[in-house]
């Protein structure tokens, strides 16, 4: 790490830190002062009703949405800074989307290889070796030369995870990655995410899979109307929720 700002960060400090983050779309304030910290290797899940700002929150962390005020730091680097080096940020933060968003004109393997070759200017042969290993890791061996349109939703989502991992990020963001999938294929994606979490990847998930959140998360955040209503480790959160809004949400969904 030669970067002066990166130099300030050490793994004993939060890898992602949000402080009083505010964000509006027009007159609608979607994030009304969100603060929390994530430590390296932690898995956190953000849950809450639709329109509570969960996806916006996670998209702000890799600067897909700019924030209006407050501070987000990733490994000590301030995201809410006009001089932000977006490439540096995106090398650290991988993102997986609800709709997979694969590049439809590229094969599965090409999808995985594209960014390291193009953006990181890495050697093609070594990228290909790594990409093939990643495709195996997400259990899609044999599908390397298939186009996204020839794969099922669950398979596409696993290619998307491999594509993100190819950039060797330190943090992975998952934005409702199973919401568009059939119930049967949800599991294969969750298995992949669980493996990642077990390997020590820092993961932030927005999810509606309560069972999965309970099993995998170190910490759960419940958001409603732009604020964090309640948070805690899964056991306490699911069994001893205090706030009436959390209780109501959990009673509807569990």
């Amino acid at each position: 790490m030669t970067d002066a700002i990166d130099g300030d960060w050490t793994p004993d400090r939060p890898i992602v830190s949000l402080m009083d983050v505010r964000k509006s779309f027009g007159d609608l304030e979607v994030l009304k002062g969100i603060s929390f910290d994530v430590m390296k290797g932690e898995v956190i899940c953000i849950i809450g009703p639709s329109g509570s700002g969960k996806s916006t929150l996670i998209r702000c962390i890799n600067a897909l949405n700019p924030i209006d005020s407050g501070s987000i730091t990733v490994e000590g680097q301030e995201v809410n800074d006009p001089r932000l080096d977006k490439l540096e940020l995106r090398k650290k933060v991988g993102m997986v989307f609800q709709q997979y968003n694969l590049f439809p004109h590229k094969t599965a393997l090409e999808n995985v290889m594209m960014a390291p070759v193009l953006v990181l200017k890495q050697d093609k042969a070594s990228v290909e070796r790594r990409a093939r290993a990643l495709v195996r890791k997400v259990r899609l061996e044999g599908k390397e030369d298939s186009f996204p349109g020839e794969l099922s939703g669950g398979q596409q989502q696993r290619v998307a995870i491999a594509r993100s991992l190819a950039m060797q990020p330190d943090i992975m963001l998952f934005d409702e990655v199973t919401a568009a999938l059939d119930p049967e294929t949800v599991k294969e994606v969750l298995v992949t995410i669980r493996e990642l979490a077990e390997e020590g990847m820092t993961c932030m998930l927005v999810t509606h899979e309560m069972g999965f959140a309970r099993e995998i998360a170190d910490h759960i955040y419940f958001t409603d109307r732009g604020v964090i209503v309640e948070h805690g480790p899964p056991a306490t959160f699911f069994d001893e929720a205090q706030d009436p809004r959390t209780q109501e949400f959990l009673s509807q969904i569990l």
Partner: protein
Amino acid sequence: MWDSIQKYFLDLAERDPTWNFIYIYDDKELERVLDGIWVTLELAVVCVLFSVAIGIVGAWLQGARSRLVQIVVQGYIQFFRNTPPLVQLLFFYFALGQFTPTFSPDGYLQQPIISNVGWAIISLSFFAGAFNIEIFRAGIEAVPQSTQEAAESLGMNRFQAYVYIVLPLAFRVSLPSLNNNLVNLVKTTTQALAIAVPELLYQLVSIYNDYSTSQNACMVLMFVVYITLVGVLVLGMNRWERRMQIPGYGG
């Protein structure tokens, strides 16, 4: 072989003066026809290439942040799309042609630096280019914002995302409309006749003005050449379209 064909058409012209295929048995007229086909091909190929280049650059400029650039591109499109190509051709050659500098190769006569062929290429390319910008823009807008976001989240900048993700996808969406417009462009090259560009139509009209009995034969040749020319273009474009098809994407 060729001699007997020539002889056959010479006999035919003598038997029946309404079918005088003079450009088959008269080598001088044959040369005029071949020259005309050559100029038509030249016009078609050069204008197709220029107009596609204008389309790609224009569609990129349309997405520029500068309001001024956007207004200039919009003005260009409106002007060239909403006036007849024949009027544009005449305006370029007769009006603008007066204001372009001249030079004198022989020391006596002054020649404009842009010839009538030059004006025809400029005018027709700009005409078709205006449509191409709109065609490519429609293609670009058909690429989901979320696909570009994925590119962005992988660290690509706007240029990389445009060249490697947006353009290849937009181009596939644009091909059928582009096909149409290029067919139109090739047909519109005949209007260069109005400023005496010696393309095929000009040559054939001259021939049947010189030999009025050859009129029917000239008309037949016009259709044959344009059907062949446009046919080859359409065939090529269709093959290209099929080759660019992605399995499982866009029908």
